[in-house]
């Protein structure tokens, strides 16, 4: 299987703190990969490094055959690599439909596209995607008035609106009503299978990640601890130690 994302020995330091140390991973095209690890193990830092929120100190990141570790955030996103945030980020003072329309990705941003009307079919697509995440009835509400869980769903829909090749999800089920979690797993599998979007998922909920991912990486203290199938990870003593605080 060809890999769409290759992270090669990436290191990132904040002052003296080693947030990531020689982290490597690769995500195959069309797969769902999980990224787990205790709090503070550098998972979100790795996401930030990949999408270009901050520069990396060492290493290389290759997406879709292109080196992206020096590109700014919008340029990475334009290539089709998108991320969602652990603490949701939405456009609070406009409604959900407008949130979706903003998120659609015009391939070119020039005077003509900037000053052209938003096409009718885009609104239709936005409504369909909102339906897909169960927010259709709330489409006219201001996004800032949604609950945290609903904002998470909206953020997912916004990412889909952009039609990325790959999506980095930062704890997609955190803060969401537990009765909805099965629905979300289901949606994410649909996103992967039918929309053809490769997923890299940070998740603390083991049940979710074991059901979702075909391959799991485990970070601890900024270093890659283990990787393998869900079954292997589940039985890996080092992973268990990391989570229980031994090691």
């Amino acid at each position, binding site marked *: 299987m060809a890999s769409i994302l290759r992270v090669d020995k990436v290191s990132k330091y904040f002052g003296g703190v080693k947030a990531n140390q020689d982290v490597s991973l690769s995500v195959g095209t069309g797969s769902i990969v999980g990224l787990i690890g205790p709090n503070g193990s550098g998972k979100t830092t790795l996401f930030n490094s990949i999408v270009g929120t901050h*520069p990396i100190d060492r290493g290389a990141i290759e997406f879709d055959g292109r080196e992206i570790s020096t590109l700014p955030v919008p340029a990475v996103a334009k290539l089709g690599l998108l991320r969602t945030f652990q603490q949701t980020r939405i456009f609070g003072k406009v409604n959900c439909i407008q949130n979706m329309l903003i998120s659609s990705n015009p391939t070119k941003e020039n005077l003509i596209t900037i000053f052209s009307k938003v096409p009718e079919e885009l609104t239709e697509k936005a409504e369909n995607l909102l339906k897909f995440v169960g927010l259709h009835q709330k489409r006219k509400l201001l996004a800032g008035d949604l609950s945290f869980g609903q904002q998470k769903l909206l953020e997912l829909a916004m990412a889909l609106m952009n039609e990325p090749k790959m999506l980095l999800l930062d704890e997609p089920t955190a803060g969401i009503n537990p009765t909805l979690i099965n629905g979300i797993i289901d949606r994410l599998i649909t996103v992967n299978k039918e929309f053809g979007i490769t997923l890299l998922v940070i998740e603390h909920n083991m049940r979710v990640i074991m059901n979702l991912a075909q391959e799991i990486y485990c970070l601890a203290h900024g270093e890659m601890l283990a990787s393998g199938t869900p079954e292997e990870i589940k039985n890996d003593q080092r992973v268990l130690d990391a989570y229980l605080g031994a090691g």
Partner: protein
Amino acid sequence: MDLLIFQVPILMVQASLDGALLGILFALIAYGMALQWGVMNIINIAQGEMVILGGYIAYTMYVMGIHPAYGVIVSPIIMYFIGWLLYKLVINRVVDRDLFISILATFGISILTQQLMNFIFGADVVVAQSNFGTTLLFDDMVTLPNAKIFSALIGIIFAIGLVLYMKKSKLGRAIRATSQNARAAKILGIDTERVYAATFGINAALCGVAGALISITFTLHPYVGLPYTVRSFMIVIIAGLGNLPGVALSGMGLGVFEEFSDYILGTEFRIGSVFTLLVLILVYRRFRLSRKREYLE
């Protein structure tokens, strides 16, 4: 453009000494701004007006026949209460709100204070004479008014006093705790409301000291407050919020820069060069940060 200063190098000594002594006063004002910026996350546009008001208090004493040097004691006391009052009337309503609201509210206070000073003290440029005499250096090539040396010394004494006060006193420690984490401080029983009021008052008192010193070394005018605000803002962003030696150094650096620009470009460009420097510094920092994919925020 006047390049005399490069032809007569002794002028450089003169400009550097003048600038460094003046810069100590800038640093004092900047320290006050850093204090309230750090503690309350407010940038006080009226900072410069408070300085000028403090200066006018010393000037009033001079007019009444009291030596203006006593202003360094009277002015901070009066300014403390003005600052405290200002906090109770206006600032406490904007502390936790949108950044721009506090900038705009203090901008309104700045316009208001300018106008009131204009009514009370008139629109003329005034100086409080200290009659301290001058010191001559380098075979009489460099003249230093003793008032400048006096004001620099007083400025340093106040700065050291304040640093010690912040370290040792109960209120000082409460202020430092609040600046690190206001919510945690509140939970631990610190009356943040009182801390904020005191911070604002201490800042106003510092401005009072600096103003009184400026009244004997420099000139006063109702409308020259904003440049002092901008100078202190600049010093704070160059030095950072908690870095005292940095504040002192960049204050003196700015003073020297201004004296040199005075000699080279002419006095009419002095204010213009201060504001241009502000824009250039900010834009330079923005480009340096954006190479690290960061923003000046």
